[in-house]
């Protein structure tokens, strides 16, 4: 892998997020970078992946010829079962999510605010695709980690004082992992604090690229 720039790659971000997985956890992974977390589950850590379209115990992608149109994940990708798998309807699936039975959700974000708000479903003026299950996930899952590039294409911070886009959920993000590092907070009344720097990243760079009022020291 070429290391022509500093900060974490998407795969490294996913690998860092995977360290938050604990043995016995039930986890929902969002579409995009969060999906990559499944490739980095630590050895000896037994994690059960939930797919909100109605499955627990998501297995890997099928080998060619073994795909089944009736067996997909929430990203509409063909997948497989594991011995522990179970299927259920959408109401039961979201009863798991909204009832607080899922331990961890890792999801992408367009913006996260210092108070834990997240926006990841809508850009006004553009065609809106919909929130899918994201609003349910951030409102219901015990712990939510947002995984996103720290800045947008114009170099502007996506970790903000306040979200400018329509919210997906209020005060629901517990940890932020970006290409620059890890930001954690003790509870949803606390401020985020930089707890880890990505390789080749300085405190000053994080300060320069972070609009949110977070503890960086």
């Amino acid at each position, binding site marked *: 892998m070429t290391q022509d720039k500093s900060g974490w790659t998407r795969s490294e971000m996913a690998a860092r997020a995977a360290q938050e997985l604990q043995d016995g956890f039930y986890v929902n992974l969002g579409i995009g970078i969060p999906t990559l977390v499944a490739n980095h589950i630590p050895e000896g850590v037994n994690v059960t992946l939930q*797919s*909100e*379209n*109605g*499955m627990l115990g998501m297995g*890997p*992608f*099928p*080998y*060619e010829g073994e*795909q*089944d*149109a*009736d*067996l*997909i*994940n*929430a*990203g*509409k*990708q*063909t*997948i497989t*079962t594991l011995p522990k798998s179970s*299927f*259920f*309807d*959408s*109401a039961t*699936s*979201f009863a798991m*999510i*909204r009832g607080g039975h899922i331990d961890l959700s890792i999801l992408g974000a367009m913006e996260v605010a210092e108070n834990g*708000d997240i926006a990841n479903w*809508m850009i006004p003026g553009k*065609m*809106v*695709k*919909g*929130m*899918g*299950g*994201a*609003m*349910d996930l951030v*409102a*219901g899952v015990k712990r939510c980690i947002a995984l996103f590039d720290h800045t947008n294409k114009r170099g502007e911070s996506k970790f903000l004082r306040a979200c400018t886009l*329509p*919210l*997906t*959920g*209020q005060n629901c993000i517990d940890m932020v992992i970006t290409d620059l590092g890890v930001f954690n907070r003790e509870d949803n009344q606390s401020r985020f604090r930089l707890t880890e720097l990505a390789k080749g990243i300085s405190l000053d760079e994080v300060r320069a690229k972070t609009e949110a009022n977070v503890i960086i020291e």
Partner: protein
Amino acid sequence: MNGKIYNSANEALADLCHNGMTVMSGGFGLCGIPENLIAALRDSKASELTVISNNAGVDGFGLGQLLETRQIKKMISSYVGENKEFERQYLGGELELEFTPQGTLAERIRAGGAGIPGFYTKTGVGTLIAEGKEHKEFDGEVYVLESALKADLAIIKAWKGDAEGNLIFKATARNFSPMMAMGGTVTVAEVDEIVPVGSLDPNFIHTAGVFVQRIVEAKCEKRIEQLTLRERA
């Protein structure tokens, strides 16, 4: 006894379709959609439809067929991102759209079928979705009131079914269909296979016959949206 069995999707819907009706249609993406019943609904030419479905199909397939014919007036969905025709009609103001979060959608449909006109949820509190809706505090947390969804007709796809309307579903093709079976005034199911009454284990029937008024065996294309494969070692 033929019970609830019809010979074709078109026959099953023949006297059920009318302009302005509300239709629930099962499936997540293209997985578990009632392909033949959607085509029969298109053939019925019923228009001004309100369609409740998690997604809107893709261009020319699934509910995309009803978009092409302009039979849909309004969609109630959680995600419609796979459909250019949808985007064109929506941006052109020809199509109404009510977004509802996926879990709230599933629960609203179940509520409609279960005699629950409204329920509170944390989902969407503080977002556009909750604007104008009643809020209420329980144990110090704020929740928003969501209302039930019902439909004149529910069309769903199951794996196997019998003449009594008992159904089982396969894998993730189940998704919204069991709730829609409850939420439709009339529910019509298409199945891969009709089996004799008594051959489904009563312990493992997913949708009891009371929720299903008509059933038809029909072959599905079962298109895959995102074929993702693993390399053989």
